[in-house]
């Protein structure tokens, strides 16, 4: 499934540059372009081109370094490997099965999950802690995989004017620390602001289906959202998640319409509770004061 948003963006930008150039041509009524850097605009337009997959992966790797800079990996090899086999099984049912998919659990008690361009998914320990079984995990990962399939983050980053310049660095092909550092600011801006709500609703609809294709009980994601809908929205544990996503209750209402009752026929498939609980047992041990 290729992005359908790039072409109109490029056309609009080209039209804009053409318009500016016409104005600069000295026509009466045109405005003064002395302070406008045409080269900069052209570079930005170039940045709106379709991003080849290798570049997308490089961008995603840089984004991931910044996400893991905020909170490192959970120190639990068995858990990391488990999330990778579940995640890869789910991702291989998507339209981009051959991306270099990587899944990571970070050492954060806060509830959240992040997708980066190119197939890196980071899920917090806190998110796994509130899940009941593997079908819920598959649903959450399916939601994140859907963001990658639809290139939601990549397209959002491309709307950032400065990103066009960054793309020139990626195009040069050498993955270096300068590029990673340059990606840090747009990464922080995007992951603190979040995607458009429509992207989140779409990822919900697709995530349910991708988990269902993987053979799971497709109601895992709705079940996870139902848990989140009961969490106090003022709780610091969900503050960033709730800021960057539509309210879980709104997401459930949208899913209720999209799935309806005709989707009952797709029901079935294991929730795989026992293995999930065994492997996630260690991170569930908490104590109240």
């Amino acid at each position, binding site marked *: 499934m290729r992005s359908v948003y790039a072409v109109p963006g490029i056309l609009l930008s080209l039209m804009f540059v053409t318009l500016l150039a016409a104005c600069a041509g000295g026509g009466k009524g045109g405005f003064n372009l002395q302070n406008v850097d045409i080269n900069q605009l052209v570079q930005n337009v170039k940045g709106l081109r379709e991003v080849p997959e290798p570049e997308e992966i490089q961008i995603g790797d840089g984004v991931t370094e910044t996400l893991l800079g905020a909170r490192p990996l959970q120190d639990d090899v068995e858990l990391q490997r488990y999330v990778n086999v579940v995640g890869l099984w789910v991702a291989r049912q998507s339209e981009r099965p051959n991306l270099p998919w990587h899944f990571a659990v970070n050492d954060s008690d806060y509830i959240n999950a992040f997708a980066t361009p190119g197939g890196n998914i980071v899920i917090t320990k806190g998110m796994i802690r509130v899940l009941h079984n593997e079908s819920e995990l598959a649903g959450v990962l399916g939601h994140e995989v859907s963001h990658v399939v639809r290139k939601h983050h990549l397209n959002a980053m491309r709307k950032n004017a400065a990103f066009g310049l960054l793309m020139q660095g990626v195009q040069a092909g050498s993955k270096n620390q300068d590029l990673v550092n340059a990606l840090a600011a747009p990464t922080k801006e995007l992951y603190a602001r979040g995607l458009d709500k429509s992207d989140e609703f779409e990822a919900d609809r697709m995530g349910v289906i991708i988990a269902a294709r993987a053979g799971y009980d497709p109601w895992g994601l709705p079940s996870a959202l139902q848990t989140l809908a*009961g969490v106090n929205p003022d709780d610091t544990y969900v503050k960033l998640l709730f800021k960057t996503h539509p309210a879980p209750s709104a997401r459930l209402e949208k899913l209720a*319409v999209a799935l309806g009752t005709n989707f009952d026929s797709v029901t079935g*498939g294991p929730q795989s509770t026992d293995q999930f609980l065994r492997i996630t047992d260690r991170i569930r041990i908490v104590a109240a004061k």
Partner: protein
Amino acid sequence: MKHELWRWLAPALFLMSGAAAAETGYTLQQTDLKAKPFLDADTRTKLPEKTELEIVLRQGPWMQVKTKNKQLGYVRMLQLRLGSTPTAKDSNGWVSVLGPGTSSPRPSSTTVTMTGGVRGFSEEELQASKPNKAEYDKMKTFAATPDQANSHAAEVKLTARAVPYYGEDGKPLKDQGAKK
């Protein structure tokens, strides 16, 4: 080993935090309590809006629930919200952010003590991030192969199937179709 220590400490910590609380929920609107998890199953009773229920188990789009007078039955998952009813949500009516099986929900202002303290991922912590190549390189070492993913699927009896995407209106999307 740290993990081994936790296995010994776990029961004591659960005692400290109180008995594991049963999950509760409430109806969003008047809802049928069905005898079985099917739309055409017998209706045992009609549950009024905001009826508080105990969640027994999850089964696809259904939840098996128990009413306050111990009546068992099934309601549609999306007809329920977890936690206490909005009017009862004072300091302790929310779902625990510490997950099922932990102590009953706590006031959000209370500090929860965990080993090493709470590890956040707030907007401020995101803004303060410095790219961490070492963790990125480590993440790559955990990658699964397709064979490993397939083995896991076989182990938990997952079978891939073709399912189409659905649009916002609940209609199958023909153009995106089912992955074969």
